[in-house]
């Protein structure tokens, strides 16, 4: 180790000693709300609501193709990559460096009779809302581009609508649609019909 490196180590240590972790910072209510929501999700608290159906919709796939990843190009949306694993697929935007925070969500179409069960903001990183009617449910998610979406994909289909490529996937009762509009990634999942999911996805902003 050179003298410069040794001196930098020592300097950094001394600077660190001066820092106080215990002095309370008065965070804003919105920050606390966002972070609490985010940590709740990380702990898995909110996922209990989705139970097996949701988990089925989001994870575990069985498609094994002859290639591991394919890049899809699309003019208005970002390029995205589908990475295929033995038990699930992952949707990821290739160039997600310039992120816009997800501050709000617009759900332009909600099927008749469905009511909101939960709504959560994840510190600008993601917003989710869950709706249900009897035993039917769906949830929508808007996330920053730098997010990976894992999903179950026994069956996949590409739907093109208004210049955007929507990836529809299904496995048993659980279905979902993932897409990006160039600024955010959207994910709609549920055990409702494909047509209803499409209507919701097409009206998400």
């Amino acid at each position, binding site marked *: 180790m*050179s*003298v*410069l*490196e*040794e*001196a*930098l*180590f*020592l*300097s*950094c*240590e*001394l*600077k*660190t*000693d001066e*820092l*106080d*972790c*215990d*002095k*309370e*910072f008065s*965070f*804003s209510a919105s*920050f606390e709300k*966002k*972070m609490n929501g*985010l*940590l709740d*999700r*990380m*702990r898995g608290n909110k996922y209990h609501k989705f139970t097996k159906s949701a988990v089925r919709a*989001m994870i575990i796939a069985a498609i094994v193709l002859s290639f591991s990843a394919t890049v899809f190009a699309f003019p208005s949306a970002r390029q995205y990559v589908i990475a295929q694993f033995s038990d699930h697929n992952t949707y990821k935007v290739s160039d997600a*460096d310039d992120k816009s*925070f997800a501050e709000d969500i617009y759900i332009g179409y909600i099927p008749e009779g469905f009511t909101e069960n939960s709504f959560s903001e*994840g*510190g*600008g*990183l*993601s917003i*989710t809302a869950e709706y249900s009617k009897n035993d039917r449910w769906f949830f929508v*998610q808007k*996330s*920053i581009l*730098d*997010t*990976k*979406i*894992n999903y179950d994909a026994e069956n996949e289909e590409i739907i093109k609508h208004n210049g955007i490529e929507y990836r529809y996937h299904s496995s048993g009762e659980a279905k979902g649609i993932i897409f990006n509009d160039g600024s955010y990634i959207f*994910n709609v999942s549920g055990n409702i019909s494909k047509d209803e999911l499409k209507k919701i996805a097409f009206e998400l902003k």
Partner: protein
Amino acid sequence: MIAFFDLIDDSENKKQFEYLYYKYRNLMAYIAQESLSNQEDAEDAVQDALIYIAKNFDKIDDIDSKQTKSYISVITKGFAISKYRKERKYIYDISTETLNDCTAEDSSFDIYDKTELVMVIDTLDEEYRNLLYLTYIFGYKSKEIAKMYGMSDSNVRKKIQFAKTDLKNKLKGGK
């Protein structure tokens, strides 16, 4: 599937991340606020830093260690400076002319006393000092720092060179 949930894979790491968050959040906020005048911006910088830390969670070994505390403070400062720069459309470009002909090679510091060098490092501007910490202590490449600080790779390299030249000049002046 959501943000931190996605960025950190196993449940033990998720617990560790949460522990890190509560341990350092006050410190991070104060560090961010030093560079950013309003609270909202400071909180945004804390969030950016947390995303970055979550993405690079493998770089953290012992959360309670001094090394982790330094790492988190340097990273947070980086994101706060980056935010400051973006919001004010601040372009910092050191032209090569401002650099001395004398390029301070690392080995050229070997003739100086370590304690003396530490004292001179303390006189550097915080941003320069952090760039040196990131490079020499945390092993960051200029490209990685550029991404974090929101500036070009060449500017980072120039600044590191400038910092070393400044150190050398101050050491010479002190002799």
